[in-house]
């Protein structure tokens, strides 16, 4: 019997399922001694609640629209059993293609779901809140992935997205803080509702966009004008970003007193936000999250329906062909890399103005790299990359969620999850992704 990809993946899936079921069994067994009411591990139930968002505004304790009670151990056993059987079939049948990707996706998705059920054993979890968190945390990843797509589709590898985001987060925050002080002095005006003043925040976002664009211009300059290897140039950007932002923070931001205390506010979209389940997931977010969704579909349109998009795809695939029909390849690459950097700047603004308010050293914590993984996962298509971003953010959201419960799985392991998922995806388990053919290659006539 030969070892093939399908068999390897089957084996991996079975291994994950078995480890999971043992871990759950062990963990729930330990809980029995603490709780007097429960006699056996089969008595645990996990409840999934869908709250009634409309009524919760009036009465925070309003009963949920639905509360699904699942027997923890039985449900997890069934899921793991199914994964083992499917994995076994994969090993036995060894299909040449077509089954590996769906199987691995189900292992990841069902694995996440099982961990969630396990974490909320004898407790309940709010589904809309969890999924809304997935969208929220997916925002910077998705925007970063779009930045990567704009660059790589035109043939420039941009590994420096992380650095562009970090610098943009830093200077975006600085722009907001400084402009708030310049406009309002030491205290915000009375009219500011709960401390939200728009002008400095918008200036902050613009500052982040400009910063991202400038970092990208440096990347373009190095890699197009001087033909520096694009991976090296991107790495330079990343290292430089740590230095610049660290310096700015200690020498300036920490000492600077700004009247601005809060970042971008929650903006529920009227009655849409009250739809059960869907409302909180899609229509109750902060501005950059809405902007992200617009950008995903916008870029998809621009890439496939406009002259700019056609030319971008052409120069990333076969620059010589584009050149011979009179398209200025390098000028277009400059432009696209800078646009990409500006998009990365929006993601940077998310970190310091929306996700939290303020700037911390290294606050982008590798999300820029995860963006690139999401871009590859989505095969360089905006909508696919959006899907990839949600996958990675669900790992992250899950991790944050289960920390709230007294949970047996070590938090370090949970923090590792998104990166492990990234590895599995990048190893090519989810189908092979083919990058734009000229990506990373200098164009010379």
């Amino acid at each position, binding site marked *: 019997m030969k070892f093939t990809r399908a068999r390897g993946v089957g084996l991996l899936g079975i291994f994950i399922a078995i480890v999971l079921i043992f871990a759950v069994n062990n963990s729930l067994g330990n809980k029995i001694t603490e709780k007097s009411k429960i006699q056996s591990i089969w008595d645990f139930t996990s409840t999934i609640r869908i709250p009634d968002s409309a009524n919760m505004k009036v009465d925070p304790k309003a009963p949920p629209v639905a509360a699904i009670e699942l027997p923890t151990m039985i449900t997890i056993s069934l899921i793991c059993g199914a994964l083992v059987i499917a994995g076994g079939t994969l090993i036995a049948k060894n299909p*040449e*293609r077509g089954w590996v990707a769906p199987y691995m996706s189900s292992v990841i998705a069902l694995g996440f779901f099982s961990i969630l059920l396990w974490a909320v054993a004898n407790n309940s979890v709010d589904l809309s809140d969890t999924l809304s968190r997935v969208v929220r945390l997916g925002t910077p990843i998705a925007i970063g992935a779009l930045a990567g797509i704009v660059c790589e589709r035109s043939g420039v590898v941009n590994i420096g997205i992380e650095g562009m985001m970090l610098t943009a987060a830093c200077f975006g925050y600085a722009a907001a803080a400084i402009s708030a002080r310049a406009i309002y002095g030491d205290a915000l005006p009375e009219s500011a509702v709960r401390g939200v003043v728009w002008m400095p925040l918008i200036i902050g976002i613009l500052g982040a966009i400009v910063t991202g664009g400038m970092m990208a211009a440096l990347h373009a300059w190095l890699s197009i004008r001087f033909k520096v290897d694009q991976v090296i140039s991107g790495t330079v950007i990343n290292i430089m970003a740590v230095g610049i932002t660290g310096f700015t923070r200690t020498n300036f931001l920490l000492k600077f007193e700004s009247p601005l205390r809060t970042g971008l506010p929650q903006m529920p979209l009227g009655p849409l936000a009250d739809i059960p389940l869907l409302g909180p997931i899609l229509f109750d977010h902060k501005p950059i999250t809405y902007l992200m969704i617009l950008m995903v579909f916008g870029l998809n349109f621009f890439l496939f*329906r*406009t*002259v*700019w*998009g*056609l*030319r971008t*795809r*052409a120069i990333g*695939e*076969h620059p*010589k*062909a*584009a*050149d*011979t*029909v*009179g*398209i200025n390849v390098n000028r277009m690459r400059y432009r696209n890399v800078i646009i990409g950097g500006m998009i990365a700047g929006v993601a940077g603004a998310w970190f310091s103005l929306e996700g939290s308010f303020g700037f911390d050293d290294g606050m982008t914590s590798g999300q820029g790299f995860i963006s690139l993984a999401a871009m590859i996962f989505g095969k360089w298509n905006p909508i696919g990359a959006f899907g990839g971003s949600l996958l990675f953010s669900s790992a992250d959201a899950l991790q944050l969620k289960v920390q709230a419960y007294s949970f047996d799985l070590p938090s370090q392991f949970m923090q590792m999850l998104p990166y492990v998922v990234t590895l599995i995806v990048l190893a090519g388990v989810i189908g*092979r992704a*083919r990058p734009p*053919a000229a990506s990373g290659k200098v164009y010379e*006539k």
Partner: protein
Amino acid sequence: MTANVVPALEVRNITKQFPGVLANDQISFTLLPGEIHAFLGENGAGKSTLMNILYGLYDPDQGEILINGELAKIKNPADAIRLGLGMVHQEYALVDTLTVTENIILGTELRNGPILNAKEASQRVRELSEQYGLAVPPDAIVGDLPVGVQQRVEILKALYRNVNMLILDEPTAVLTPQEADDLFRVMRELADQGKALIFITHKLREVREVADRITVLRRGKVVGGADPKTASEGQLAALMVGRDVVLKVDKTAANPGDAVLKVRNLKLRDDRGLTVLDDVSLDVHAGEVLGIAGVQGNGQTELVEAITGLQHLPTGSIELLGKDITNRPPRSITEQGVAYIPEDRKGTGLVLGYSIRDNLVLSTYYKAPFTKGLTFNDAAIDENAKELIETFDVRTPSATTTAGSLSGGNQQKIIVAREFTRENRLLIASQPTRGIDVGSIEFIHNQIIKQRDAGLAVLLVSAELDEILSLADRVAVMYHGKIVGILPIAEATRERVGLLMAGIQEQPNGK
């Protein structure tokens, strides 16, 4: 030639010097509307340089270009197109991932503001393709189309830009004979509609078939013109090479012995999951040349790499002299008596940065007499180099010159010298004469026949049908990874092989 017709294009005294080579030396010619003007020349005669100058890719050192009687400055391809000059390169300038229409309109898009007008564009492409008899599917992805159709897309791309002159650079290199005939029909059609065509080739048969006028280039110079109706192939060849050449390879009938190589049921898929080898089985006997014909990219490369151990095979078996060599390491296969002339001379055949002397021991350096204990025996390596350079007539200043600085023909001779001097039972020659001069071609052809007569089994892969037909004793044709037919040389006519190359299998009783 009538004097009162203004030439569509007139070139006067074009000269272009590259480091070490005078690529174009005082070249002058005219191109009239409605004619097909063929440029004939060996590789390195300066044809491509001349065309790249016309198309604005190179700057000439001297000389002038007149278009419709007016002096023209062509700085880049966009200028050329604006002046009505289009070009179809040997390697198509097509983006594989885009559709036919997108490729054609790229750079000159039909648009509503920034938005593409996809519907009208594909309608326009359809009209053009009907007007010139160039059938293409406007909405298909270019990468999925056969090369013959891709070539039509390239031609349409130029026509879409309203060119009245079209340069076709070696357009038949990747076509089956039938596809080539189809192309000639299109060329004639274009000429009849008043377009002027430049047809670059080194194939004598083709110029006589399609050209109105022939200009022969040799070593960067125009060495003469000829009338395709009266000039014989022999005359053209002599003009092209500068001396009389023997077009036929001298060989006696084969005297085949036992099967040396047995290939059984090879199957292979590529990264994208597409079939590259589809149940390939064949035998090569001692003392015969089995030629593999087929348009490039139909699995020949993978077949050769599988036999030489460079490509891992999931299914199938390969036997050499009764011994299983499937998926054995390349060195072990070489040591069992396999000589290999790879198709990629520069990438696989030689280490270009190494000296000739080192390249000559690449497959034997680790053995006596070249290695003694832990060190090389330089004297033996030098001696080996000296001997082989002489026997195989490698033209080089010294044995320590790097392989990369030699001409293609001399590079190929180094490979041949290295491979042919081992104790061999099987010779695999893949595109052995691609891109080299006629002198070297003759030499290598004779060497291959010599090896056959010495009792080796020879597997010859070539995209040049003429080469297969003149060297092979049996002809196998590959199409989409499959052997679609094996014919003894007596039955392998150009037409039959051509049909097989296009995947059309013969039916026993008519249709």
